[in-house]
């Protein structure tokens, strides 16, 4: 009934033959009568660092959950490297939004990091020494190895974010999805996360990030997805961050006016 999520690291084939990392086609998702996503189609090529922007409740997290195969779409498909997301196991790693995690759960930093190895073991197997070694390595990379035995609730916000980054690194997936990783973290953590994302990109991984800060979006990402139920734009930041498009999506909230002015001033 339950299949293990074992997968073999795919050898890098000649670029042209390899299907795109993520292919979303005609995606419509609804919660009861309310549509969360309507007719979204986009293709993300491998090795790109992509930001998803849009106002609150615009379906950013829903798009991410669809890419993880967590929700069944009403219409449309999500394909990961050419095969349906439902059959994909462990090739997509996920860093949840901080508010979506039960920080009182009885689990230590080391155990969370080691979860990244679950997809490499059958469901009844225990993790091996080697799995914990890999988790330790990832914790060192995000500078959290000193806290390995702490319960996850006893960390600062930035540290909590880094633990989940470590879990994603341990999973060694081809695609990483991060839900608002920069929300409410200190500058040091923001820097650390960005460095890790850069490294991942250089390793040829595809990274998709839900992001709320328009001011930094252009600086952080190669491509931006502008979302409000429908897809309003998908392309390089220069193309997406234009006052007309943002005005349509954000409908003149105060913040956006300030944002537009800034955009205007920069030309």
């Amino acid at each position, binding site marked *: *009934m339950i299949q293990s999520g074992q997968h073999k690291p795919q050898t890098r084939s000649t670029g042209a033959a390899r299907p795109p990392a993520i292919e979303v086609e005609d995606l419509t998702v609804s919660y009861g009568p309310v549509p969360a996503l309507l007719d979204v189609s986009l293709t993300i090529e491998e090795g790109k660092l992509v930001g998803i922007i849009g106002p609150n409740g615009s379906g950013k997290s829903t798009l991410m959950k669809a890419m993880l195969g967590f929700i069944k779409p009403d219409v449309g498909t999500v394909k990961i490297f050419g095969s349906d997301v439902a059959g994909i*196991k462990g090739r997509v790693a996920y860093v949840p939004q901080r508010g979506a995690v039960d920080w009182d759960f*009885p689990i230590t930093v080391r155990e969370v990091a080691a979860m990244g190895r679950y997809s490499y073991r059958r469901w009844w197997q225990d993790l091996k020494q080697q799995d914990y070694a890999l988790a330790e390595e990832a914790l060192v990379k995000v500078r959290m190895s000193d806290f390995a035995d702490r319960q996850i609730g006893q960390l600062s916000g930035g540290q909590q974010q880094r633990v989940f980054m470590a879990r994603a690194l341990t999973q060694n997936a081809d695609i990483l999805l991060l839900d608002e990783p920069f929300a409410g973290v200190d500058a040091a953590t923001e820097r650390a996360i960005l460095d890790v994302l850069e490294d991942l990109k250089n390793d040829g991984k595809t990274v998709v990030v839900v992001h709320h800060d328009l001011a930094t979006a252009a600086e952080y990402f190669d491509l931006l997805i502008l979302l409000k139920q429908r897809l309003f734009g998908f392309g390089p930041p220069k193309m997406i961050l234009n006052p007309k498009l943002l005005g349509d999506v954000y409908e003149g909230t105060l913040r956006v006016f300030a944002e537009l002015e800034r955009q205007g001033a920069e030309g």
Partner: protein
Amino acid sequence: MQDAIIQFQLDYGYLINPLIVGTLVSIVCSVVGCFIVLRGMSFLADAIAHSMLAGVIAGYLFMKVLFGQESHLGGMLIGATLAGILTVAMVGLVTRFSRIKQDTAIGIMYTGIFALGSFLLSLDSVGSLVLIDIYHFIVGDVMAVKTGELWLLAIVTSIVLSVVILFYRPLQLTSFDPIMAASIGIPVLAVEYLLTACTSLVVVSGVQIAGVILVVALIITPAASAYLLTDRLDRMIVASAILGVVGFWTGFLIAIVTGSAAGAAVVITMTAFFFLCLVFAPRHGLLADWIRKRNTVPQEIMEDVLGSVLRSGDGFVPVEEVLGYISKPNIKIRKSIDMLERQGLLDVQDDKLKLTKDGLFEARRLVRAHRLWETYLDQTSVPKEEIHSRAHQLEHLQDESMVDYLDDKLGHPITDPHGSEIPIDEKRVARNEKVLLSLLREGYRAQILEKKVCQEAIAIEVGQVVSIGKRSEDGTIWTVVTDAGDILQLDHDQADALLVQIVEN
């Protein structure tokens, strides 16, 4: 000897079955309970317990009408389990397809199904067929357990425990992060139904001891107590099982001695254990929390004490004088003095205080932060009468780079607006370290180590030793004297461009 054993069996043999059953049931209930508590499913477990009544009657009738078996425990067990799963499925259905929230849906479904069971039972046509002692079903009767039932419960226990051991990681991950679980191919919904099936099984077995009304306590109370005791799921499960078994034995013995209802006594004991954990748990207990709160002295108060000792001058200062300096004295001051003494920052003798070397360093750092903030605030629109109190709050900010920024922005001032001296940055002006020349005060001698590029050239070479003279022009011009006797006037940028090492002062 032989006789004694036989006599013992005659006297107490009737206790053996109940004790075995109780032990098995409390282990399995409290283990499954851990997942129920963590997933916030307690109310659902309660619902399953109540809806069982209908399932038990259905199973009973099924076995009696079709096979002529009277009160067939297996039939009732299966019926009850199915009723539990049906309840959960209905709750899921209602929540999904209507605007009704889950807790309401649970409330409606289980009372409805429970009512269906009692309605059927009260009908003469059904009631005459079903010979269940409804009272025992509601409050439980562990003493009435027969050997056949014992075997059945042993099987249920081993099934459920094997499921939890085999499916430990899927259960853990779906409880903690269902989205990741789905992304690595764990069927989240199937795991949830598996847990629900286990819950139904343990509820049905728990009813033997405590009855439908109290059975939830066997499941959630030990688990919740264990949750307070530990920060790891594997340990929580073991602790929960131990608490469950010890709780059962204690409660059961109390019931035997006092001749009371075993179910009630067991639940009371478990609840008492919970309160013990709530108060005395090492990290999450109320007592630990209270001690922690009591022992932490706010950093600000400790810093205020240090600052006021410094301002009171050299040598030992009476405690009363320090109390006078602090605007809002409170009881924590005594405690913070103790704390500072333990940290080696204060020297305390007969109610008199003196800063140690480390304490002096720390106090100067604070006074420096305070006076820099005052100097800065003096240049902002903050009303003059508020400057002191604002600076007082801001000086406690932990970020040292903030103070460095202020210092640089203000041009490394020597005095604050009241004319008091701003202490030198002792941390940066340490021996054997590169330091900005601009941070040094009159009287220091230093060797130039590095000359950074700056707008105006500086007529000084790397390696030269200079003495720092008095600053002029309101402290904006640095004067340095080379050993050859040349006098140089440097502005802020130039002084910042020179990195030096202190030779002597």
